């Protein structure tokens, strides 16, 4: 019974994650435009873009090699696997034993590395700029994520995301005050690794300012569709990850069918909307950080992560 419910929950979870991903990315874009008093593209445009790209011919640069062709496949496969592992509305899905936080961080790194190599393989100038920026941001963003993981694991004794969500369940993060400090580094790290928000969001269509858009500049047709889909999947996965750790309330055990699932689904929708609203608000209110300032901001995130670890240590030492 648990096996069956875990499997069904997994299937529903993956379908929702993949199905909602482009919509969520479109929603963030639309919300930001509304906040800036613009009409904005409707969220469903994201789906239609994907469909249109699927019908277009794939053109690859003459100087590119097998790496360029493999990059969208690897990046999207790693992103979708991460999406399958991060719980959304239910705990105890079939892949729950695999959902190690260090592994999820590694999958994000794999997706990013594939993107970077694909961009460098095209041999164009803008791809190189984007690749070097994305790689350099990751150097500061990854330690922030990993420090949060270490802090959580020291406090709760596991790095498994599913178990962590379960352990954080009753009182949420409020039961562990030092963890509140870990939210900021995780959010900063997430914003630096997806293409939205004030750290690495899309600033303009001008190539010198590009970050993640520069990585996909030379891809076209189905390659580009796959890449855009992967980016959207990473966005919803990061949102769900933050929700699973810092807003874990109302996630249902997989066996709690159907009432628990319905509550979990509703709660997940609310959490995604809140996070999307926060990101859109931040993006509308702030200009994107200059490239030279990002390392400083993310360095502060690392320091905050260390501080969270220190608070956990002090809390354990005093207890």
């Amino acid at each position: 019974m648990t096996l069956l419910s875990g499997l069904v929950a997994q299937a529903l979870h993956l379908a929702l994650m993949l199905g909602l991903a482009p919509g969520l990315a479109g929603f963030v874009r639309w919300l930001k435009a509304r906040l800036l008093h613009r009409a904005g593209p409707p969220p469903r445009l994201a789906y239609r873009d994907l469909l249109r790209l699927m019908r277009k011919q794939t053109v690859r640069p003459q100087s590119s090699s097998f790496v360029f062709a493999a990059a969208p496949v690897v990046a999207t496969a790693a992103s979708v696997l991460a999406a399958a592992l991060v719980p959304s509305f239910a705990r105890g899905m079939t892949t729950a034993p695999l959902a190690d936080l260090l592994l999820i961080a590694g999958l994000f790194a794999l997706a990013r590395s594939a993107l970077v190599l694909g961009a460098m393989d095209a041999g164009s100038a803008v791809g190189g700029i984007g690749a070097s920026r994305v790689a350099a941001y990751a150097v500061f963003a990854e330690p922030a994520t990993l420090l949060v993981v270490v802090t959580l694991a020291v406090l709760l004794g596991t790095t498994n995301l599913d178990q962590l969500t379960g352990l954080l369940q009753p009182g949420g993060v409020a039961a562990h005050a030092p963890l509140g400090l870990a939210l900021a580094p995780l959010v900063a790290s997430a914003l630096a690794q997806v293409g939205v928000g004030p750290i690495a969001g899309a600033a303009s269509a001008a190539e010198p300012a590009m970050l993640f858009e520069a990585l996909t500049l030379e891809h076209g047709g189905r390659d580009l569709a796959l890449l855009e889909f992967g980016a959207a999947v990473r966005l919803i996965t990061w949102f769900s990850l933050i929700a699973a750790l810092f807003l874990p309330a109302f996630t249902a055990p997989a066996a709690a069918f159907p009432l628990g699932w319905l509550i979990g689904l509703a709660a997940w929708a609310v959490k995604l909307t809140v996070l999307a609203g926060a990101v859109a608000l931040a993006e509308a209110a702030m200009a994107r950080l200059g490239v030279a300032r990002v390392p400083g901001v993310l360095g502060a995130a690392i320091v905050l992560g260390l501080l969270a670890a220190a608070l956990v240590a002090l809390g354990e030492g005093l207890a």
Partner: protein
Amino acid sequence: MGRAARPVAIPGSNRAQHDHRRRQATPDAIPFLPALALIVPGLLAVAAVEAARAGFARGPAAPGRAANADRGRGARASRPAANGARRARIAIVTLCLAGAALALACLLAAPAPASLRVPLGEPGFGLVLALDGLSCWFILILFAVAAAAVASCSEASAAPLAAFVAALALTVLAGDGVALVLGLELTAVTGWGLMQADTAADGPEPAPRAGASPAFIGMAVLGALGVLGAIVLLAPALPSGFPDLRFASLRGTAPAGWSEIAVLALALFGAGSLAGLVPLHLWLPPSLSAAPVHAGVLMAGAMLPVALYTLLRLLLDLAGSAPPLGWGVALAMLGGFAALLGALRSVIETDLRVLLACIAIEQTGLVTIAIGVVLIGRAADLTSLASLALGAALLLGLTQGLLSALLLLAAGAVEQGAGTRHLHRLGGLAQRMPMTTLCALVGAAGLAAMPPGPGFAAAWLLFQALIGAARAGGVATQLALAAAAALLALALALGTVAALRLVGVGFLGRPRTPRTAAAEDPGSVSRRVMLVLATLALIIGLVPGLLLRLAGPAFAALRTEPMGVRAALAGLRAHPEQPGYAPLAIAALLAGLAAIAFVLLRRADPVGQQRGPAWDGGFAAPPPWLPFGDPLTQYGAASFSQILRRTIGARLLAARETVTTKLPGETSAARFLVTTRDPAAAWLLAAIAAARLWLWQRIDRLRPFPLGGAPALTLAALAALLAVLAWRGLR
């Protein structure tokens, strides 16, 4: 006189004790050690025959111009000479493969530790060789890498390679201090010989050789002396007053107070200097850069794991019975800094081999973190934590060996095929050298800790060990280990960028020089060797649990609880009852998803694909005299690392950029120069220079010393000698 007579008596008593031990050993342990030990003289014999043959082939022809002829002869060797060299290489590869198979069988059989006394020199003297799980594990790495290096080496004379491998094998098989130090010193000497040998096998660009080999042999000899000092300090005295240097008796001693600190510091210095542990790493990049290709492969892929073996043997086996908690924490922090420095340098360096050497320095730092956590586990009496960290160290040793060898072989292939080893002259190799690119990609992904590769499994274990260690100690320990975790995370992230830059700038994109555009994959043997190594790396990544099961005897040899159910076919776990990291399942899921994406992309495509000029931000197509586009519009080695160089590099490595622009009308080229200074060089080399100056000033003062003063000096020396003798007599 009585004292002088004693040395003859000691080895006899040694032998009596040893015979007693041998009777206790289980019978199934006996065949492995002698068989492995026989490979060492076998390699030396092949080396001697090969050296004699090479000398004979060269000698009568032009005895006076031997040195000059040396360079060309490797390439234009006559047919019998080439056949002879080929036979010698086949013999060496066979011996190495036999050794690797023996080591594998020994790990599978897991016999009790054995030791063997080799009579050598005067009657009664001898070396003690020993074999346990730890030496088995590392001799497996050593022989596997050596077989790969010698098999793919086509031009160079194999004699120095064989001698080097023999010295390394002696180091790993050593069962007493004499054999260990002898092995290390022989490693230094033969390694120095390797660096001198065979410039014909080198790439077309002459390597910067100045100062590299003296630095190598100096560090290696000093390191061996440090190891000797640590062992002598540890050794219990025999009844004769001489120290008993056998490992078995070293294990029983427990030094305390200052002698304990001295032993640990000397051991760390001795083994760390050969392993390239920061701040003793300065010799490694120039040495790896100056050595011929296959010597570099052996130095990085075989010598560094052997140095790690020495580190593990000294710190965890001989001197590591019960060090205080702080020592482990300090080691973890030192390892974190070492990994960070190595990774940061590898992001900035542009010479392929220097870059790989810096990645090796990072890996040594990671192993040092693991050793620190093992010591913390022992001090806090958490045996499961110690075994977790030891598992990380053993996996890192394996990946260090195989992946360094793979990447250096790929770098060698690039040097031969593309004619340069500088990143800013490479590029576009993926189309001309697809096999080398694929192998370099696998190797770089492995070292960059990409799931589900081999490096990720080791990094995962290391993080779990650090988390467990933080839970073990008090507030201060926990804070220090959180900092170590931050350093580790930063080093891993930098290592990923270094790997991306290595592959992205070196192999992908457009060619940056016409020579690179005509690059070619190496010959079939080299290609196959690289493919085998890459396959092995993938297998390690998929079944790290099985390998750690295989390494069970190594855990036993270091008196650590084996991983048990935490290392299985399915994957690795930090706690027996918790889920962990399951690489097989992850790899299967990734492959399945990638297959779906590929089908979506390729099979159901109604329009088809085509190639066209790159969009490149809408710039016009390059003129016809630039068939690969303008090389300057492509991001290069220096520009890719600019952000990291200006932020972390400027603080840690004092990275500076000098731009020399030219006025309009000047025809000379503008220059962009990046300089870095290793922080270890700043104080270590400065200290050495100051010491040398001081010494020379003292010696200089003796120059005007009057001849008439000589008798007084002699008298003083005599008096000092008598005083020493009197003091010893009183004791």
